[in-house]
């Protein structure tokens, strides 16, 4: 049982993250927590396992009881016996090199002995990964190992912070089925998720946060989707693959791939983790060279990135990789200074609703805001071809809808947008969807 009364919390810098939360979660409930980026979802669950205040400090008011313990008074080690937490980025929680070491970390901390690692791995369908190095695993496999490493200590409450963000449909479905099974077995599940269309039918209750307050607490709400595709027009071919083969060492990714992409299109690349979506984007951008065949981009064959920068824009999966400047405005101007292209910085900032952060240090912004800065830092140069790798990480529905509209408008202007995503919402904005499988290519 979780009982929270009058919970308010402010981080050390004074930012109020939670404001007067009252909440009860019974044993065995499956609760979905949603809300816009920076609304306090993650802070709320940090209060349940004692990371707030033990790890983060800050000012905590009100009372929290979890499984009969007060997280603020108990140690995080004590709380770990009751609450297991899977973080948004599984990579960030790994402490070992291999799967076996990672699974045994939690019990080693608690001085427990694991009777059967294989049983935990089999439960998640990753029995064959036991001896594998974590570094070699795909995003989906890492996510499952992260969950297994928490489940192995048999917590009563399992918290997952956006676990679906890097999972393909099949893997996401498998994970949700597993969570349902654990929930049926009596485990309390608390799931933070933006991609709510994937979790409908699983959770029994939805809590919506806004600016640190609960604004909705009840049965899961239905999710809006774009009513129709933005447009279906297409024009001149901008990118053409001709018999392209590519491999990383012995690992073949593409063999004789031929396809083309035209202006006015919004193409969504789909496929399981490791199927070559990012590789395809990097081949277009000139970051990778095909082993054989040609990638023709705007009339240039197998051109290196130096020749394409500015005309082709690439927004990488992790916005943190874009951010190095002292202010948002410098970050966005950077591409214009380098490529000699012209663009309206203020208008772009305004379009992405980050004009008020103009003078802020970009890395201090929330995940969704950083993602918008990364998008603005590329789109300001108005590249003819825009490549996006999972562009909606940390974005809520409203932001995704706005991005979908922007991309539709952008493509209408005679540009090409190619996007690799697992996000059903964004995929529904596509004029064409391409499904990639390992060494198989099905254009639809």
């Amino acid at each position, binding site marked *: 049982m979780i009982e929270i009364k009058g919970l308010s919390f402010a981080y050390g810098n004074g930012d109020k993250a939670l404001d007067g939360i009252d909440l009860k979660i019974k044993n065995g409930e499956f609760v979905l927590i949603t809300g816009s980026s920076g609304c306090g979802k993650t802070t709320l669950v940090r209060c349940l396992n004692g*990371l707030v205040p*033990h*790890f983060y400090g800050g000012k905590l008011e009100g009372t929290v009881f979890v499984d009969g313990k007060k997280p603020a008074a108990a*140690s*995080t*080690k004590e709380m*770990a*016996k009751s609450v*297991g*937490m899977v973080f948004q980025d599984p990579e*960030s*929680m*790994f*402490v070992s*090199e*291999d799967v*076996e*070491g990672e699974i*045994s*970390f939690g*019990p*080693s*901390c*608690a*001085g427990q002995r694991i*009777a059967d*690692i*294989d049983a935990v791995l089999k439960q998640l369908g990753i029995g064959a990964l*036991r*001896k*594998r*190095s974590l*570094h*070699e*695993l795909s995003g989906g496999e890492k996510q499952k190992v992260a969950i297994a490493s928490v489940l192995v*200590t048999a917590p009563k409450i399992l918290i997952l912070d956006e676990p679906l963000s890097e999972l393909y449909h099949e893997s996401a479905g498998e994970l949700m089925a597993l969570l349902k099974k654990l929930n049926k077995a009596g485990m309390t599940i608390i799931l933070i998720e933006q991609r709510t269309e994937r979790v409908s039918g699983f959770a029994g209750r939805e809590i919506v946060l806004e600016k640190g307050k609960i604004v909705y607490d009840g049965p899961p709400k239905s999710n809006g989707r774009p009513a129709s595709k933005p447009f279906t027009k297409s024009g001149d071919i901008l990118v053409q693959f001709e018999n392209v083969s590519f491999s*990383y*060492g*012995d*690992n073949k990714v593409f063999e004789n791939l031929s396809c083309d992409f035209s202006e006015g299109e919004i193409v969504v690349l789909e496929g399981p983790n490791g199927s070559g979506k990012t590789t395809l984007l*990097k081949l277009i*951008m000139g*970051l990778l060279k095909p082993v054989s065949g040609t990638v023709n981009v705007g009339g240039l064959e197998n051109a290196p*990135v*130096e020749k394409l*920068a*500015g005309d082709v*824009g*690439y927004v*990488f999966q*992790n916005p*943190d*990789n*874009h*951010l*190095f400047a002292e202010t948002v405005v410098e970050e966005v101007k*950077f591409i214009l200074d*380098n*490529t000699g292209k012209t663009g309206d910085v203020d208008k772009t900032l305004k379009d992405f609703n980050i004009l008020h952060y103009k003078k802020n240090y970009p890395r201090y912004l929330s995940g969704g805001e950083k993602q918008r800065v990364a998008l603005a*830092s590329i789109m300001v140069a108005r590249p003819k071809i825009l490549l996006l790798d999972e562009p909606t990480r940390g974005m809520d529905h409203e932001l995704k809808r706005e991005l979908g509209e922007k991309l539709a408008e952008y493509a209408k202007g005679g540009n090409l947008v190619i996007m690799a995503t697992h996000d059903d919402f964004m995929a529904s904005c596509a004029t064409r969807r391409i499904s990639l499988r390992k060494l198989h290519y099905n254009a639809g």
Partner: protein
Amino acid sequence: MDIISNMGFFYSYRDTRFHNLNPLLKFSVCAVLAIAAMVLEDPPVLAALFVISAAIAAESRIITGWSYYMKVAVWIAVFLILLNLVLSQSGNTVLFEAKLNLPIFESIRITLEALFFGLTISLRLATVISAFALLSLTVSPQEMMRVMTKMKLPAKSVFVTSLSTRFVPSLMDDVETLTQVQKTRGAKLKGIRGKGTVIIPLLSNSLERSVSVAEAMESRGFDGKFEYGRQKSKAEND
């Protein structure tokens, strides 16, 4: 999967007899090969040790990764042989002799004995590097920690060492990705200012990653007290 892991430069489990040996035994085999190569001087014996290590690498299916180490060994060997030929003046069987009239090198005298000695120390070095390659490619960091703990090294220090090695591949991936990101934005990665566009986010990412790992460790009950134990699978228990 990324480029670095595809290079086969790091440990990767393979279902081979050597991989499946007890980690202490694997460690001992590698240590014996390395120590024997350092102590023994007889070239046929050194050659035999090298062949044994190469055979183990082949049996363990790590030849790709092992060959990276061997490429380094070849470069060092070439350097050592040349250095020895030029600097060592001893030996009776002269292969080449010439007057140079340089301030330090008035003459050069290359002997068969110097060449032979250069080849011997190169073989010794190659065997030591080969043994090290076997160790790093067939013993996982987790297994290494168990070995070190069995050798009575402090568990906390072993854990900290292991944790820092776990970041090496991530750091290399980061460098590659950040370089690509800035290239796509037209950045010229020359000079301190240019490289700063990669170094600044690299440092920030590393710091943020270390905070995230610390947070995750605390949420999993880590409080500085840590015991490595061999957790047996059901199959192993049976």
